[in-house]
């Protein structure tokens, strides 16, 4: 047993897991507010990362400004997408809604590949230090920053839903759309806002991953990886999404470790979360924190 490697991988998993958790949270946010499963979540990451990269390399903006412009752009993008494409889909059957987001996903993926190419493009360096020593482990400062940002976002979300007016309106909408509407909440605005927030936070995660690994179309696969996370946590639980993200992050790293040390099957890193997903669906279909659907006749 190589304990040091395992420890390093678990830490790695926790760091990546927080990012998964953030993306999963965005996913749950959209699902809770508008009952739409967003298969284009990964493309939000991709578009955000490419936009930021474009601002930085083409205009030579400092990172902080490029990042702010990216967030503004993604907010507008999320709102436009919701208003133009998803508003007509309200009240349509579930398969149509799923297919619209899938259609958007392959459209934007191809568009991004066309505009920016399929090769990995590195971000301009942002930090001077190459690696920071934490408890005897070498960790890239960006990862630490990413983790800090992720935790800040999570705390921000908690505050937002607990105390802000918009957040309360969103929770009310998630609870019962008709009642919320009769109390004077603009459902349209809530839907648009949830997409805007989701796009912005996803872009943030995309930029963090892009800074570490470079930007490429592989980013959109995170959108698929999010599914095991949200299923483990429960589709409509924000806390569940975060915990699910952490579990999936650690799980895939441990799977890689087990694979490399004992099993030698290869590719277990990508596929292990999906096996877990199937098992969870068979045993506990609504995840750890999800609300079971109770149907009455």
């Amino acid at each position, binding site marked *: 047993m190589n304990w040091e490697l395992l420890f390093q991988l678990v830490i790695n998993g926790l760091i990546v897991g927080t990012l998964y958790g953030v993306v999963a949270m965005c996913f749950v946010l959209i699902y809770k507010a508008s009952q739409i499963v967003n298969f284009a979540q990964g493309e939000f990451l991709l578009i955000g990362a490419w936009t930021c990269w474009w601002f930085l390399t083409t205009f030579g903006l400092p990172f902080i400004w490029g990042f702010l412009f990216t967030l503004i752009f993604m907010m507008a993008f999320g709102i436009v997408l919701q208003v133009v*494409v998803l508003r007509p889909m309200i009240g349509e059957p579930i398969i149509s809604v799923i297919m619209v987001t899938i259609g958007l996903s392959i459209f934007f993926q191809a568009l991004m590949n066309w505009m920016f190419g399929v090769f990995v493009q590195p971000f301009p360096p942002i930090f001077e230090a190459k690696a920071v020593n934490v408890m005897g482990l070498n960790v890239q400062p960006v990862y630490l920053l990413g983790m800090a940002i992720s935790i800040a976002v999570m705390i921000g979300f908690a505050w937002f839903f607990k105390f802000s007016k918009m957040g309360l309106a969103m929770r009310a909408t998630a609870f019962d759309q008709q009642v919320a509407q009769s109390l004077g909440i603009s459902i349209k605005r809530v839907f648009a806002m949830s997409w805007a927030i989701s796009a912005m936070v996803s872009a943030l995660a995309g930029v963090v991953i892009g800074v570490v690994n470079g930007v490429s179309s592989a980013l959109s696969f995170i959108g698929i990886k999010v599914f095991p996370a949200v299923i483990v946590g429960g589709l409509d639980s924000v806390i569940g999404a975060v915990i699910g993200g952490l579990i999936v992050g650690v799980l895939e790293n441990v799977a890689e470790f087990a694979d490399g040390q004992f099993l030698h099957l290869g590719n277990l890193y990508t596929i292990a979360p999906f*096996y877990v997903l*199937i098992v969870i669906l068979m045993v506990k279909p609504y995840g750890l924190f999800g609300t079971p659907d109770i149907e009455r006749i």
Partner: protein
Amino acid sequence: MAISVSRPCGQFKTRYRNDTTLFATPVTRAACIAGIVLVALSPLVLDSYYLNLMIQIGYYGIAALGLNILVGFTGQISLGHSAFFGFGAFASAYLNNVVGIPVWLAIPLAGVWTTAVGMIFGIPAARIKGLYLAIATLASQFILEDFFARADWFSGGSSGALANPFELFGFAFDSDQAFLYVVLGYVVVMYVGAANLMRSRDGRAFVAVRDHYLSAEIMGINLTKYRVLSFGVSSFYAGVGGALFGIYLGFVSVEAFDILLSIQFLGMIIIGGLGSIAGTLMGTAFMVLLPEVMEQLVAGIGQVAGDIPALNSGLAYLKQMSIGLAIVLFLIFEPDGLIHRWRLIKAYWKLYPFSY
């Protein structure tokens, strides 16, 4: 409402038997037979390019019909159809190469084998539905894809598997002209089979499960049985379509069966019309022809406006974008698919010039 316009004006049926005929009117039957004859005669006039497209529409159409039985008729969702399509292709190659079963027999056997696999992956469907099922089938897509890449004994791993041409009574159907008849035969059998299934007890049970599963259960329909059965039937169609695909190309490799193909299958049935057998074929034709049209379009723009390098190099992406865009636009503007448009056109001419 959509049904009534496809019938002659008014309902003149006096028996239930008349209500469940295979073809709604004698004209429909004649049109179908004429279509088959036309396709059968087409190798006389058309060149290889068009025959190739028709063969593609054939095998994709069979698989898409399976998906339509699952999604359109039973109301389940599957995002892993291309994995079953691929399983059929590999299974037929395996049965032929390793076990030594002749190709003509390997195709239906591959379908049966895929049915078994599909039913295993359909077991979660007994408990979950809607979104959760969509995600479960997404997982099965990745698990099967991974299996293909890894199982050297079955699929040849990353190097792929060779598939022999279709042979019957010592005659090899290895040219486009000859293989068209094989595919045509399968398309006819599978489509008539599906149309027949839908007027049987099991077919009506599928529709009942889709429309209101609680009522269906109260009426004595075993939900678990029909949900899993629907996955089985759909996998059978996917397996047969996949086997034909493998035999036509002569070579099967993992890369062909990615999630994009699953999405394309879903696009076919949505564009064609969910829950419509004829619509499936229309949607498949649309999806197969769309990339070709894009290619012509880019070539046309190149001729008019001079060569634009960005357009030519981005052709592959343009094709993918057009698929995504077509799905989104159809869902927003024509959620009932091409078949609905076709019925409207028929109704318009039926009442012309006094439409009221």
